[in-house]
């Protein structure tokens, strides 16, 4: 056993702190805290998070959380399943979608019981509203399925989960950045044994040994410039998994939300359209009537986004540069705006100086949600390939790909996802931890991270992090956004390679140890570069248009060839010039139970 590290919880060896917990959760957004609420009462649990939990981006979610409660009109979880499958352009694993829709009801009731202040119906039940892509009886008409709390549902979910974590005394390690997953070779197979984290306040390294490890680190929208995502959503968790040689699924599918404040990307919830707001082009035409005659403005996001870009491309955009469309809420009246959509009303006023009560708001699509991520099964267990699980490793939330969202997530299904699969991850992690022993840590598990951190701190190159990041984001917006072509994607690939070379020559200015955010931005950029490359490489390979992935050169969906998930693996030196030399792609079949792929019409 001498190959392995011997230590006690709390030891400090060579400046590295060692901790031992049955369950180690990385990330304290909705998914991470939902898992913690299950895990903490039953096992010794630690939650590592780079932000104070209430700063997580779940708090930005506005519109609502879907569940077929049928509180205001007839509804059923089967319809919800169908909508999810259809919304995801049939790339959804239908067994997972069924679980999502069925467990949605309990997920909402759990939250209510934990104290979440949902808006209420006149009878005092949880109120529900319409949301894009959610329909009654397989597409007949929009249905009221989204449970909501004004336009701050995500805020309320995040607060409620945090409140319950406080109640349970969950052990948070705030402002600890997880930077590596420790794998120990056991019988020739690498098994997860811990997580290495960097403590922002001190610059010290911590190793958390865990029997079960849950990743819930959220999305990576910062690969784009125009995004609704937070500055901190740099995909660290997904990047860590990628660097371990584990696969990533469906990375080409990124959702662009139709209504971001033009130029800024700040989100205006789809709930606005749920309440009746209308998209208009420069001439005031309600153009969605042409594209989706049945559900018009409430068509799924990929469709609406594309139509908007189309309108602008064809010269019908509004504004001096004809480069955006308008979201018209004026007919809703001040009352509805102030009571049901107060936050977005304020965003428009603050950031654009536009008052939605009297004028339409300039909007354009904004990078919003990563459908792809760490592949898991319905138990939230991470997959090593198409069907082998990595024992003890779990993922949930936006960083994971179950896949319930397929190629396009329906609005309100993600808050649902984090609750349903966050809970499952927590439960299964505890169950697993109660049956096994700790996997020993290798000698010096923090070695790689120490080298990374010290390498960057001492680097004396001439490149600046911010400049590289900006080039990456601009390029992704230009060539890998709503519309993609072989040519545009090839350009991005080239840019990324070049940026990667320049990244070797960066230097940071803050050489200190305490609160060195300069250093962390450098590390985060590393993850962004890795993930952007996987997104682009996967996108280049999928020569069809489906859901969030729209190829101008292959505008049709091609079920013959592409009705399957992409699985990407890191198999070589990421610095090699040709992405094909270090990324290899594979396919994974889609689970189909009840619904055969059909053309998507709304």
């Amino acid at each position, binding site marked *: 056993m001498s190959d392995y590290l011997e230590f006690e919880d709390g030891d400090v060896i060579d400046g590295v702190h060692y901790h031992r917990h049955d369950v180690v959760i990385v990330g304290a957004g909705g998914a991470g805290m939902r898992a913690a609420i299950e895990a903490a009462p039953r096992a010794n649990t630690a939650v590592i998070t780079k932000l104070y939990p209430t700063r997580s981006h779940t*708090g930005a979610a506005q519109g609502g959380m879907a569940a077929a409660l049928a509180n205001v009109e007839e509804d059923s979880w089967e319809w919800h399943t169908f909508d999810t499958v259809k919304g995801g352009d049939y790339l959804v694993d239908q067994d997972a979608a069924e679980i999502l829709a069925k467990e949605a009801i309990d997920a909402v009731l759990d939250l*209510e019981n934990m104290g979440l202040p949902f*808006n209420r119906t006149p009878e005092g039940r949880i109120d529900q509203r319409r949301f894009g892509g959610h329909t009654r009886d397989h597409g007949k008409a929009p249905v009221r399925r989204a449970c909501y709390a004004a336009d701050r549902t995500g805020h309320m979910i995040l607060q409620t989960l945090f409140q319950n974590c406080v109640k349970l005394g969950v052990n948070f390690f705030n402002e600890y950045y997880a930077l590596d997953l420790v794998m120990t070779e056991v019988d020739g197979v690498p098994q997860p044994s811990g997580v290495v984290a960097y403590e922002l306040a001190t610059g010290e390294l911590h190793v958390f040994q865990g029997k079960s490890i849950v990743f819930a680190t959220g999305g990576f929208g910062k690969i784009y410039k125009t995004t609704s995502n937070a*500055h901190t959503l740099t995909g660290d968790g997904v990047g860590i998994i990628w660097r371990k040689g584990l696969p990533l699924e469906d990375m080409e599918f990124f959702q662009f939300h139709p209504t971001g404040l033009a*130029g800024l990307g700040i989100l205006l919830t789809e709930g606005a359209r749920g309440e009746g707001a209308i998209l208009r082009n420069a001439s005031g035409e309600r153009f969605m009537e042409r594209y989706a005659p049945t559900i018009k403005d409430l068509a799924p996001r990929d469709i609406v986004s594309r139509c908007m870009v189309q309108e602008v491309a064809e010269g019908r955009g509004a504004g001096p540069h004809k480069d955006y469309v308008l979201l018209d809420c004026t007919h809703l009246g001040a009352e509805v705006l102030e009571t049901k959509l107060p936050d977005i009303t304020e965003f428009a006023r603050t950031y654009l100086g536009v008052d939605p009560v009297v004028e339409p708001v300039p909007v354009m699509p904004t990078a919003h949600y990563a459908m792809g991520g760490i592949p898991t099964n319905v138990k939230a267990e991470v997959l090593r390939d198409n069907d082998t699980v990595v024992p003890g490793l779990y993922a949930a939330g936006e960083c994971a790909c179950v896949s319930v969202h397929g190629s396009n997530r329906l609005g309100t299904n993600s808050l649902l996802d984090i609750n349903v699969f966050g809970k499952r991850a927590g439960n299964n992690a505890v169950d697993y931890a109660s049956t096994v022993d700790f996997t020993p840590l290798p000698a010096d598990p923090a070695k790689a991270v120490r080298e990374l951190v010290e390498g960057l701190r001492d680097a004396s190159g001439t490149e600046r992090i911010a400049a590289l990041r900006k080039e990456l984001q601009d390029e992704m917006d230009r060539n890998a956004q709503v519309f993609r072509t072989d040519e545009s994607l090839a350009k991005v690939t080239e840019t990324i390679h070049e940026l990667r070379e320049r990244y070797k020559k960066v230097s940071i200015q803050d050489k200190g140890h305490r609160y060195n955010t*300069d250093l962390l931005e450098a590390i985060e950029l590393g993850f962004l570069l890795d993930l952007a490359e996987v997104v682009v490489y996967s996108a280049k390979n999928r020569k069809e248009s489906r859901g969030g992935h729209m190829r101008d050169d292959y505008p049709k969906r091609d079920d013959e060839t592409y009705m399957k998930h992409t699985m990407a693996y890191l198999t070589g030196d990421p610095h090699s010039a040709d992405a094909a030399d270090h990324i290899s792609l594979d396919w994974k079949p889609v689970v189909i139970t009840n619904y055969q792929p059909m053309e998507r019409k709304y």
Partner: protein
Amino acid sequence: MAGAATLEAVDNTAKAEAPIQAFTVTLNIRRYDPEKDAEPYWQDFDVELYATDRVLDALHKIKWEQDGSLTFRRSCAHGICGSDAMRINGRNRLACKTLIKDLDISKPIYVEAIKGLPLEKDLIVDMDPFFASYREIQPFLIASSKPDKERIQSVAQRERFDDTTKCILCAACTSSCPVFWTDGQYFGPAAIVNAHRFIFDSRDEAANVRLDILNDKEGVWRCRTTFNCSEACPRGIEVTKAIAEVKAAVLRGKPDIPKK
């Protein structure tokens, strides 16, 4: 390549909005790095900005183009995560919600850390004491029965505590309170706001416990109605009013919640 061509144009939307004119703004930032400095000091930076930029954009420009060691917290960049409360021109605000055009740029913009919490580095303070007093007021629903479905709550009852559910725990209020500055022992408005959120929730059964906790030397009675908290709250919560309601509830022995 219709799509890509369009997207070029999208980039420029913000500029298209108003006649764009960049001007140079001076930011005077209170710096402190415990590894180097014995005392905090002020440092100026000149930054090119647009009227639509926010103070957060200015800080980013400095960090990204001039001095990477400038340290501050931020995440969402639109006022919902509560990371970037700081003192801007002498008042607590969120950097991401403060537009340059709303400030007088003929003079330097003063930016410094919030007051009353231990200063860690530049604009970062230690938030642990803040969360500690939050935890003390038992900020979670306490209800004995577990119904099969949701608990029933009328629209009026839900409305009763709506204002205080908006809190993002940014600490702008607590760190603007002159009473909190004196010795930091006062629970502070944020903790009271979050207690209010549960005390006035018709589903909660432990209002008395929280009222007891706040009926204390460091509780509601220390509030001297200076209203700095209400002025500072980026969520527009009527903090002082909430505190007054809690005081009234302590005096009556129970909160005033609509019966139906």
